[in-house]
């Protein structure tokens, strides 16, 4: 069964007299438990596609279904609920809440979900240990390095075990070692919990981890290939 079905997605931006094609008749089917990399140059539509699937941005036309539910037809509150319970986001800029500690950032989504304090603490401790931030739980984002902040953001995205993780250039600010560690965690979660990953990246090393590679250019899918993950 397909987890995500995108049909004829179109998104255009007006820039002066020119029309920029963010998404130009993009159609995709993504199976549950896939580990997919979206590649392509800047402006090719990778981020626009992730934002559209996550309900962060609206479409000019087309349909998106996640587990049979039409995302493009949902209202603001229903979209918020979908993101809260089913989708984890990892952004290129870590996007942590600066007034919350690493643990509080990780627990934030669970707190909004209404998970008990004891369970939140148990889950956040486990995930922070897994991402190598044990002992740094009480540090605020400003007290963490870029790599550490990105790991907190990843921990936040996967701690509540969403069905789908949308990651936009998650390794852009990481060194090789941190990148390897992060991708290994993504892969482990993908294998153990059948979490679907859709990762937009420029990084060839990241692409090697994927089972499927979708290339985009000028808002269009120019290639969609299954590949043998080398890691």
């Amino acid at each position, binding site marked *: 069964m397909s987890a995500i079905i995108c049909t004829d997605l179109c998104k255009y931006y007006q820039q002066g007299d020119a029309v920029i094609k963010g998404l130009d008749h993009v159609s995709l089917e993504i199976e549950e438990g896939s580990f997919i990399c979206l590649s392509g140059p800047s402006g090719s539509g990778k981020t626009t596609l992730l*934002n559209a699937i*996550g309900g*962060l*941005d609206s479409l000019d036309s087309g349909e998106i279904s996640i587990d049979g539910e039409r995302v493009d037809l949902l209202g*603001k*509150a229903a979209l*918020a*609920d*979908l*993101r*809260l*319970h089913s*989708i984890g*986001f990892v*952004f290129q800029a870590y*996007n942590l*809440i*600066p*007034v*919350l500690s690493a643990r*509080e950032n990780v627990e*934030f*989504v669970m*707190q*909004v*979900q*209404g998970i008990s304090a004891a369970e939140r603490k148990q889950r956040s401790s486990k995930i922070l240990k897994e991402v190598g931030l044990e002992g740094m739980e009480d540090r605020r984002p400003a007290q963490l390095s870029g790599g550490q902040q990105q790991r907190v953001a990843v921990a*936040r995205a996967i701690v509540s075990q969403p069905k789908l993780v949308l990651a936009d250039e998650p390794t852009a600010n990481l060194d090789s070692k941190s990148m390897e560690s992060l991708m290994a965690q993504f892969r482990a979660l993908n294998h153990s919990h059948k979490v679907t990953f859709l990762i937009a990246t420029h990084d060839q090393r990241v692409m090697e981890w994927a089972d499927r590679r979708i290339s985009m250019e000028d808002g269009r899918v120019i290639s969609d290939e299954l590949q043998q993950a080398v890691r």
Partner: protein
Amino acid sequence: MAMPVRAMSTLAWRNLWRNYRRTLIMLLAITVGVWAMIFMTALLRGMVDNMVRTGISALPGHVQIHATAYRDDPSVTHSMPPPSKPLLDLLNDRQVLAWTGRIKVPAMISSEQDSRGVTLLGIDPRGEVALGFDSADIIEGRFLDGVDDRGIVIGKKLVQRLETRLGKRVVVMSQDPDNTIADRGFRVVGVFEADLESREESIVYAGREVIQSMLGVGTDISEIAILGHDYREPEALAASVRNIVPADQEVLSWLKLDPYLSTMMQVMDGFVLVWMVVIFLALSFGLVNTLMMAVFERVREIGLMRALGMRPSAIIYQVLVESLMLLVLGLLAGNILAIGTIVWLKDGIDVSAVSEGLEMMGASSIMYPVLQYPDLLLANSVVIVLGIITSLLPAWRAAQYRPVEALSST
């Protein structure tokens, strides 16, 4: 889904102190505003309270009984008999604190040097003291001993006008029921001081029986003055008395006897509300500006929270809670400061430099702040309710950000 109250409240509290300097300035503004609302209202209340009390003590009493025609023509011809047995029973009831019957007629008082028109009060001194005459106001000599005291007590200002003094004789002239001149010589046995100079100049006290005898009215009196428990609620007492007195007598509360004062009291209630709203409007610009700045500075975070699954209503809630926290802190400090100031100034503020102006309004030269709990409640309610309403604009703006645009903002 239930509102994540705790998460939002924690965020709101921490966000409040991100720019602590701005928060402290806004807190200071709210504190001063609330202080001004409460303290200035207490001063105004105190001034009106003083004017009313002074006005009532000039009447005095909360309720009065007269012959029906007396108020149109306050002469001795419109006298009435002393209280009947049923009325006496009521006057000695618990709802009455004190009462007295008096003769009250226009008269002319003359010394060797000058003459003045005055209101002659034939009184029972014990009744007057019970009603509110303060014997400490006697600055020279003594107050009257009884209803048959043959002396006269006049005000300090009248002493100056008549160029007389304690122990000297004065002549008082009025009309008897046959409209013939009735006069009598009195020795000045006491000089009183009053909050209002006009009272010192226009009222003279003599023994009731002496005046009744001078005017030839037997035991008749001009009015009965009654003191209840609360000057703000005199109508219930007036109604009870009205049920007992005969038809040729009228019973009026001070609210009717002195419409200037009663209107002032009513106007004051409206004025207090307007005053508070005006102060808050000045405050609200600062509040909206502070919250707007706080929202603009956090556009990216708001986008992030939306992306993580916060509903727009939760964003509104967070901004409103932040505003509420600011308001509550400001209210707390403002209330403490205002109540502290009022307690500190409980002995009054001497405004004698402008006392003549105040006297024209019937107020004394010492202003006492009077804190009324309904005013305190009103000030706090105005700040909270209008504060939340004012905060809706920045909160709504915050909730309208599209996640994708907010996340890409710098």
